[in-house]
Each structure stands twice: as C-alpha cells, then as structure tokens.
C-alpha cells in the first residue's frame, strides 16, 4: 500500500473496479479491512483495496476564518464561555460521530447576527462532553463567570444538554448575588446541520443576557417550532426528552419568560444585584439514590457509606421500603443529612400521609417539598460545602433560588 494520508487524493484498486477519491479516516469501530474514500460525486464508500496509489497529496487548507469584530459603544458586552456540547459540535472523522469541537470564534461565525445584538467576547473554558461534567468543573466555571462578570453586561454559557440543568443549578446556588444574567444554552440538533436549533437558542440566549435579570437561567426551544424559546429558572428545569428540541421543561412551575424577537418576562424574576458574590465550595460526599422495589437495605447501606449527605428519589409522596427506616435513622443520628424527593418529579413530597412516610420523618429524613431530585442533590453539596450541618439542614428546606415553591397549580 502507498503512504497515503487522510485527505490525499487516491486511486483504490478493488475486485469491483478502480475508484478515485479523497482518502478519509478509518472508522474506529468498522471493519479494519475497509478503506473509506469520498468519490468525485460526493459519496463516501467503503472498499476492500487490493492496491492503493497516491494521485495527489492533500493541500494544506488555510485556517477557515478570521473573526474581526469592531467594538460598538452602543451595544452591551456579552461574554460567551464555551464548555462543549452539541451547540458547539463538529463531525469527528475517527468515530464518524458528532463531537464538540468549535472554537469560540465559531459561535460568531456560525451566528453572525449575534454581533448585531452585542459586543461578543468568547472563550472556550473546556471542551468536554456533557456526560463528562463533574462538580470540579462547575467550580472552575463559576470562578470564570465571576472573573468575566466584572467586565461585561451578561454571560452566555453554551453547554451540552445532558447535564446542563445540573451545572446551571450548581451555579445558581454558588452565586447568592449576581450583577448580571448567567444564561445557559444548548442545542438538541448539532450545529453541523441546517436544521440545528443552535442558531435560535444562541440568539435568544444573547438577548436574555442583555436584560436586567440577575439569575441563572436556561434558554431553549419552547416547542418543536423555530419561533419561540423559553427562559427556565436553573433550579426548576429538567431535560425531559432524549431528542426533541423542546426537551427542557420547567417542572412544578412556569418558565419565567419567553424570547421571540424580544424578551418577555411573565412575572417576577430576580433583578441584577449591585455586586456578584461567589461561594464556590462543594462537598462531593453526597449521593443521589433512586429507590426501586427490590432495593435492599444492604445496598442502601453501601451507597451511604462514607457520605455526608444523601438525596433519595423515593416513590410517590416520598417513600422507600419500611425495612430501610432503621438504617436511615442510624445514619442520620451519625450526622448524615438525608433528604427525600420523589421520582414522580411532578408534585410535592409529603411524609405525613402514610405510615412509612411518618416513620421516615420521625427518623429524621427531610421532606424536600417540590424540589427536583437533581437540584436537591446539587443544593446539598453546596450547603454542606459552605455551612455546618445544622445550618445546612435548615437551609435545605428553605427556598434559596426558586427551587422550592409553596403553591402549585393546574396549568
């Protein structure tokens, strides 16, 4: 075989004839015998080569773009902090899959219209898949936001959608005071396709970042159509569909506003504070436990081992099997903070209605009202990182960032 490299124009001789085209990278999971080339007619085909000849070496391509933006005094300054994810993704040659890869300038290149909304400064803080996120990155991101927010009028954070609501609520708790909006945004169709929702979501996010709001929010499609985005409070939002554009929903409450051509808030929202306050400690010794029928007390015990706190996603109004009650009572006595949420997601937990609930409550399990389980998990990490056990216990039940509401309605 020839010394042919990816991008070279080659001739491949096979039993089925001779083919010419651009040599593409081998698929990571495919048949190792197969060579993939892009034919002159644009099609890729996989072939078993008998012989391969180099016709023309690949030309080095110029860097794709130069983004040269002049600052306009009349426009606000918005900082985009990239973290990876579909909104900033690209085709990966090796796996043939979509991977986060765009540089910060790509945002402006991809959606030039945002330059008409604001003076954009952008950087990629990290480039990781949503599922690879962890608390350590939340903290790094929060510190970056703190740095940027001193100099700009709003922050936009493109993020992978899988764990965006975790990161957003982590930042919501870490900033007791915010002098500018912090807007998380994602996309459910990668930006390498014409139908991507990235364009509208990003445009809408920039618009929200220009408002007088002082909260952490998530901006995503309101429906399957490309005409409206919702502004979701970070502590209320959850990804509720694997693939739809309108996967993000505000649970147990309403979105705080919408974005079409203009931003419209539906009711109350927190205004910008004079200053930004960051409390960036997180206690990672917290576990989120999904209870299911058949889960043994032994398993629960091992999951709680060494933990400072646990959020349980119980059944219905907030239950686990009654044989776990002695274990939980013991752990709580040992100083572990244990809170109860519901795997129903919709509705408020209540440990007064059934006997198991009453026993759990008596054992010291905290009913976490209508808080989303993931939000409760993040909140507990933050509380245990920044307060002593008693204070954390007290604040766990108190609404801090809109994560708990007293009233729920039939929509």
């Amino acid at each position: 075989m020839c010394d042919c490299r990816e991008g070279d124009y080659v001739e491949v001789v096979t039993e089925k004839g001779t083919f010419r085209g651009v040599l593409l990278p081998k698929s990571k999971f495919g048949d190792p015998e197969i060579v993939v080339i892009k034919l002159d007619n644009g099609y890729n085909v996989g072939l078993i080569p008998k012989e391969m000849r180099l016709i023309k070496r690949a030309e080095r391509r110029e860097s794709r773009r130069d983004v040269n933006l002049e600052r306009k005094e009349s426009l606000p300054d918005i900082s985009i902090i990239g973290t990876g994810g579909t909104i900033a993704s690209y085709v990966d040659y090796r796996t043939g899959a979509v991977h986060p890869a765009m540089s910060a300038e790509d945002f402006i290149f991809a959606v030039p219209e945002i330059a008409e909304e604001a003076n954009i400064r952008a950087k990629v803080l990290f480039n990781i898949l949503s599922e690879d996120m962890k608390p350590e990155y939340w903290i790094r991101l929060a510190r970056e936001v703190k740095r940027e927010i001193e100099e700009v009028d709003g922050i936009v954070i493109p993020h992978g959608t899988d764990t965006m609501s975790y990161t957003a609520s982590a930042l919501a708790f870490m900033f007791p005071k915010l002098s500018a909006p912090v807007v998380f945004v994602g996309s459910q169709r990668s930006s390498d396709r014409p139908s991507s929702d990235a364009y509208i979501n990003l445009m809408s996010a920039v618009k929200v970042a220009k408002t007088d709001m002082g909260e952490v929010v998530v901006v995503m499609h309101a429906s399957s159509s490309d005409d409206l985005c919702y502004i979701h409070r970070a502590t209320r939002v959850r990804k509720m569909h694997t693939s739809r554009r309108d996967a993000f929903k505000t649970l147990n409450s309403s979105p705080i506003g919408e974005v079409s051509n203009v931003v419209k808030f539906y009711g109350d929202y927190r205004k910008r504070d004079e200053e930004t306050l960051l409390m960036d400690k997180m206690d990672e010794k917290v576990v989120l436990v999904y209870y299911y029928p058949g889960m043994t007390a032994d398993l629960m015990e091992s999951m709680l081992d060494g933990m400072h706190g646990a959020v349980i996603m119980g059944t219905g109004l907030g239950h686990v099997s009654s044989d776990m009650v002695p274990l939980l009572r013991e752990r709580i006595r040992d100083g572990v903070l244990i809170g109860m949420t519901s795997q129903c997601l919709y509705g408020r937990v209540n440990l007064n209605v059934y006997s198991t609930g009453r026993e759990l409550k008596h054992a010291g399990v905290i009913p976490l009202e209508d808080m989303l389980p993931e939000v409760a998990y993040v909140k507990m990490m933050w509380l245990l990182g920044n307060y002593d056990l008693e204070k954390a216990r007290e604040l766990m039940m108190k609404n801090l960032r809109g994560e708990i509401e007293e009233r729920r309605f039939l929509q």
Partner: protein
Amino acid sequence: MKCGLEIHQQLATKKLFCDCESRLSEEIRGTVMRILRPTQSEMGEIDRAALEESMKNRRFIYEITDNSCLVELDEEPPHELNREALDVAIQVALMLHAKVVDEIHVMRKIVIDGSNTSGFQRTALVAVDGYLDTSFGRVRIPTICLEEEAARKIEERDGYVVYRLDRLGIPLIEISTAPDMKSGEEVKEVAEKIGAILRATKRVRRGVGTIRQDINVSTGQGRVEIKGASKLNMIPKWVENERKRQEMLKEIAEILRERKAEVDSEIYDLTDVFEKTESRIISRAIKRGAKVLGIRLIGFAGVLKSEKYKLGRELAERVRVIGVKGLFHGDELPSYGITPEEVARVRERMNLGNEDSFVIIAEREDLARMALQKVADRARLALVGVPDETRAPQDDGTTRYLRPLPGAARMYPETDIPPIRISDAYVREVEKRLPKMPEERIRDLVNLGISRQDALQIVRDGMDDVFEDIVKKYGYPTIVARAMINGCDDIDYEPIFRALSEGKFAKEAVDDIVLRVCNGESLEDVIRSYESTVDVDAVIERIVMEKREFIMERGEGAFKPLMGLVMKELRGKVDGKVVSEKLRNKIKEVLKR
C-alpha cells in the same frame, strides 16, 4: 446528441429510516414551523449556494400526518437503514449487472429548500458500474443509490412554504445512466426496461408519482435536465424538441457573435411613450401605477422571433418564474395594440439601429427592473449558446424553463447511521433469489396459454405471480388474463376461479363478477349470488334418476345424450367442463350400483 437518464422509484417497504408506512396521507395531525441555515461541509468548505438560498430567510410549515413520526420531524435521530429497502436496491443493482460496494455510507446531501426537515437528504451509494442492453446497444449505469424521498410541497406563499411529511422518508432507488443514449426512442426504451426491472422485484410502489424520470440532453454545449418526464410515450417528442431548441440556440449564438451583439444594462423608462396607448395590457398596467421599462438588445433583431428563431420565448420564460406575466420584444411589435408610431418612438429613444432590438415590460417598477435584469442575464447567455438549465416537460411536447441546473451535490457523512458492511456472501445470497427478468416472465406466461400482448400487460401490472398461481391451480388462462386486465386494483382473483372450478357459475359470469366487485360489491356476496341461482348437483341428480333405465341400457354411452339434456338446463350458468365431469362420475356411480 447525448442523453442520460435518472430514474427515481419509490419502494413499497416501510420508510427508509423509521417504521412509518410508505404512502401518502390526507390526515393532518398538526403543524410545526421551521427555518433552515447552511452549514459547513466535512472538508471545511462553506457552501455558497446553500448560503444564498438561506438568505431568503424562508419559513417552512410542515404538516404532520398519521404516517409520520418524530424522525420525519427531525426530532429523533434516524433509525437504522431499512434492510428490506436495501435488499431491493441490491437486487435491482444485480439485475443491472452493477457491483455492490463493500461498505455503504449514508450521506447527507444538503437541500435547504425545506423539502427535508433536516436540511439534507439522506442518500447512499449502493452499487457502481452496471449496464443495460437495449436494441440500440449498451447503456452504462455508473451509480445506483438508495435515498429518502423528500416532503411533499403543498403550497408556496410569500415568505413561507408548506410541506407535508407523508412522503418524507419513503425509500427511493435512484438509477443514473451515463450519457450513452443518442435518441428519444432510445431513452424511452431504457426508461421502459429499467421500469420493468424495478417492478419485477414486486416491492416497488405503483401509481402516479411513484416513479420519476429526469432526462439529460446535451448537444455538445451546455446541459439541460428535463425534470419529471414521467409519460414514457412523450419522451421521444420531448427529447427531439429539446435537441431542436439547442440547435437553434447554437445557431443564434453564431449569428449574434458575427454581429458582435451585446446586451446593454441600462434600463430606459418609456412610460411616457405609452401614455395614450391603445394597448389594453399596457394602459391597464399604467393605470395600476406600473411603469413601462425597457432594455436594449444590440444586434438581436430577427432572432427573438422568426420562422426559425425563438429567443423571445426563452427571455419570457425567465421573467415568468419571478411572477411577471410577460414581455414585449422588438420582433413581435407592432402588435397587441402597440402602434408602429410607438415602436418608432421606443427605437428612437433607445437609439436603436436596424439590427438592434429591445424588450419592454409594463409592471410595478421594482418588479419590472428585476425582470429586465433576468432578461439581460438570459440574453447574455444567448451570446454563448445553450445555458445549463432544469426544464419542465409540457403536455404539448415542449419544455419550460424551471431554474438553473444545480451545481455538484454537496455531501457530508450522516454520522447518526453507522456504515453498513455488505459481505460477498450476502450479495451471493441475494443473487440466488433474484426475480426473473421481465422478458423471461412474459415467456412463462405465454407458455401457460395466453397471448404475448396479455402476458406483457400482466407482467407490467405485477400480477404475473398471482396469474401463474391461479392458472396452475384451476386452469382457464385466457379468462384469468382477461379478468386481470379488465379488473381493478386490490381484487382477490383466487376465490373467483376457485368457485368457477367448483361449478358455481359459468365462465361467462366471470366478467360480470369482476365488474361488480370493482364497483364496490363484496366478492363473497357476488359469488354467493351466483351460487344460489343454480344447484348443479341437484340438476344432474334429477336427470340421471329420470333416465336411469336409459343409462342401464346404454352404459357409458349414455353420457353424450344426457350431457345434452343437462346443458339444456345449465348452459351459461355453469362451466361445461365442470358439468361433464360431474355427470360422468354420476353415471359411473349408477352403473356400479
């Protein structure tokens, strides 16, 4: 002249990338609104054509139907490629002597006119390098692809287009020939033969719009695609007219070059010339606030409209696509109420010589300017010769300008679908169960006892297997053939001929039964209505009993006279073959006793 053919055939499997039914639907369950934006290709290039298209900032409304799911809505990643559709594509490829690639890669072909919710059409090259033998010689078939059908355009309005999702995702086989055909007759034969091969798989959709032919015609300069040339009998006419049109354009180009013709970009306002015109078209337009604008075509006199040359028509076609009804040019005036004096004044104002001509348009000013720009663009192309175009076939055998020919396909990999390895063993397995070629099937049917004409029709309708099955079971080849050819879709013929063979009615009744079922009566009821009118066994029983002595006397020789008696009562009601068999058996029974 060189002609190529591209054939798109819908398959009768489920959709290519989901589990929805491949059919059209009138059941609308809701709509969504979307926009599309261009993207970069895997090679890092930005597609300019796609970018321009998107700048129109058009909105697309998609009608959701009962046979569309989240996949068609671009709200769920595509499922794996439908294996049955792939199987049909490989069958067709092998019947066309093509070579199946070792690994199939699904591509995204950028199409942002909204006909695909994703902004691309998924397509895969399945096989290469096939051929088809015709009575004119061999035609090469370089590529056979499997792709998804686009959404169905319902209406187009200012700023938005409505599409329906029923058709989106139906599997299509795309067969492209090399430009090896030299006449319309040859193109027709190739289209016919490929159509027959597709139908031989028995897994293609039938009916209007389920197969589409595009014909490429080139006479050495420029390439023209006649899109949607679906009437086979018209193909020779379309091709021949296109050849003539191209020859004409080449001659015109030569004349224009000799004259050193040129197109002036300056637009003249001639409204005042027509202030008191008798031309109803122009005076009405002016009353509506229109302007009469014109451009100069230096050296164009005589080629716009004469016995031989009709460039004016080409110019008019270009303005029609932007919604301007028509134009006037120098070769056709004075006429349409425009007087020689007015023409003279126009010529004077534009300072035109004898060899020069002009085009005027009476329209709203912005539209008129845009239209004249189109005229100037087209006139400049006339200096060169035949422009690359996509044209629509017309019922009168001519074609009409649709749009410029699109550039090379812009494609990048569909990363949501893993490549499909096609093993040699699988190809060999498909090879073993290839359907017989249409010619062979026709011979099979003729051998069963029907005319070639009928056999051809039955094979074309895809009824050959059913025909063979019925005739082998019950006989009656000519009657079965006639029933099928006269019959309608979706009739189950088998029970009819089973009943006939059981003596429930006579051969003559079949036509009537088929007609009644086609008119909507239930097959069962119709057959029963014939059954109840006659009881063959009872008639035979009665006559045999009456003539018992005669039978004892004559033995089996009694058959013929008795047959006459029985048929006197049953003629036209029951098949004679059935009666004779029953009677013979009855006589034997009596003799035995």
